[in-house]
């Protein structure tokens, strides 16, 4: 049968992709401090242990503040750039867009280090907002990729009809354009939020003494005693990001339906 061998390979590949992640819940519910087989029995105490870690709670709060701020900022900046690049032609557009998208193809450690050098050079104290600066920078290209697709599938004649019917540029944007690209905006917010929440390198170097969630996890990995609790935390995080992605995917598809575009699949 044609394609049977390929199908088997694709399924094996999926198993390879998921194999490490499947271990998370297995050991999060395992009643042993050491992560190894055979399993010792079922427990939820590692999840309960998460409630007694004040540093974790601080890290979670910091991460949420950073992720919400960065996703809003990145999406706002993304709207400007995506609208400009899909609607207008101007000299140097390719260069400017290339510059804005550059963080996508730059090793993160270089983005983080160069920003850190400038901040230290000026003498700015590292804090939550310096992480927000960095995360906004790296989330913006992703926001633009999503929003450009949303703006591109927008039918220009709908806006022109609104102008003809006497609406101003601003009210047309508010009444026609914005509602039509809203699904794109929501999925851009969700994707940026997820990226920021998970980002480690920039947070590690720019956060100063304020821990974020990944920085906290990284610091705990050195202590074998803490590993089961980290497994429990990881399980919760994976469940949350699957939930967020499902919502983002739902809005993306609804947006495509709204504007009548064909589903090409995927986020990127």
């Amino acid at each position, binding site marked *: 049968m044609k394609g049977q061998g390929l199908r088997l390979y694709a399924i094996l590949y999926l198993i390879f992709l998921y194999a490490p992640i499947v271990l998370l819940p297995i050991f999060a519910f395992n009643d042993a401090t050491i992560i190894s087989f055979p399993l010792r029995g079922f427990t939820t105490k590692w999840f309960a242990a998460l409630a007694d870690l004040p540093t974790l709670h601080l890290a979670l709060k910091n991460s949420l503040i950073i992720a919400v701020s960065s996703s809003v900022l990145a999406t706002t900046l993304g709207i400007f750039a995506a609208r400009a690049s899909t609607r207008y032609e101007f000299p140097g557009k390719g260069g400017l867009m290339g510059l804005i998208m*550059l963080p996508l193809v730059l090793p993160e450690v270089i983005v983080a280090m160069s920003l850190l050098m400038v901040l230290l050079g000026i003498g700015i104290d590292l804090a939550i907002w310096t992480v927000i600066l960095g995360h906004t920078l790296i989330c913006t290209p992703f926001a633009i990729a999503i929003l450009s697709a949303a703006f591109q599938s927008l039918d220009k004649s709908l806006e022109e009809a609104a102008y003809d019917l006497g609406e101003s540029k601003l009210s047309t944007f508010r009444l026609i354009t914005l509602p039509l690209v809203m699904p794109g905006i929501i999925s851009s917010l969700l994707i940026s939020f997820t990226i920021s929440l998970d980002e480690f*390198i920039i947070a590690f170097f720019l956060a100063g003494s304020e821990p974020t969630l990944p920085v906290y996890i990284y610091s705990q990995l050195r202590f074998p005693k803490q590993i089961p609790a980290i497994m429990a935390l990881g399980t919760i995080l994976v469940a949350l990001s699957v939930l967020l992605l499902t919502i983002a995917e739902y809005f993306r598809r609804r947006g495509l339906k709204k504007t009548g575009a064909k589903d090409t699949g995927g986020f*990127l």
Partner: protein
Amino acid sequence: MEEKSWWDRFRRTEAFAGYTLISPTALYALLLLVAPLATILAYSFLTDGDSVTRLVWEFTFDNYITTWTQPIYRAVMMRSLSVSMMVTAVTVILAFPVAYYVSFHVAPDRKSLWLFLITIPFWTSYLIRVFLWKVILGYNGVINSGLTSLGLIDEPLTFILYNVNSIVLTLAHAYAPFAILPIFVALEKIDRSLLEAGQDLGESRIMTFWRVTLPLAMPGVVAAVLIVLIPTIGDYVTPQLIGGGKIPMIANLIQSQMLDQDNRPLGSALAVSAMLIVTVVALAFVLLNARFLRVKK
């Protein structure tokens, strides 16, 4: 007067509207990306002072001479390059059949589901994924304890963690979805009637793949290679966790020079050199494949 009318005319052009709209985002990138990159470029030509964080404003090439001639730095750069090339090769070669399967053999309404399944692992915490490989490969890890409890081995295997191969495996796993998506997009764009034409004209299935499908998929393969190659050269976490900190790559070296050793000029020269290597390798690869990338409209 004339100046003003030029300005007035310019203000009404499409270009002006475009510049105005893009300016916040472009300014942000200029201030937070271009300016910092320019700063480390400048730092890389300065001299490190005696006291902490002090720079001496003397122009020098010494940092680059050190970077490119000292065996330690050369070794680390070569390791970063070879690790990321191995990762790229493994990732792209393993990913291609999956992208091909999803594009050519999955029913159109199930494609989204497959892509969704492929992308989910990528959106779960990178740090935790890397750490999980340590859990799998470790001395008391899943593989060793699993094999021991099955009675297949007596002593834990020590050769599976803390070496270059385990770094390659971990990174290949982490970047897998990055490789599948661009190849999939390129395969989707292929006009299926071209394949039928190839077979009608007497080519075998394999020859049609080799002479029609693969060349048309090359833009996707090139994109996949670049997307995997560039960030893996600068990976910091995996050498730290999976390599046990004993097999540093360029990112670890930059970090230790800039922060631990507090030699910012040398750290900057390392960072600039790393960017140069990435750019040269990426450009060379693109040029090698230039004949596939000329898009037929």
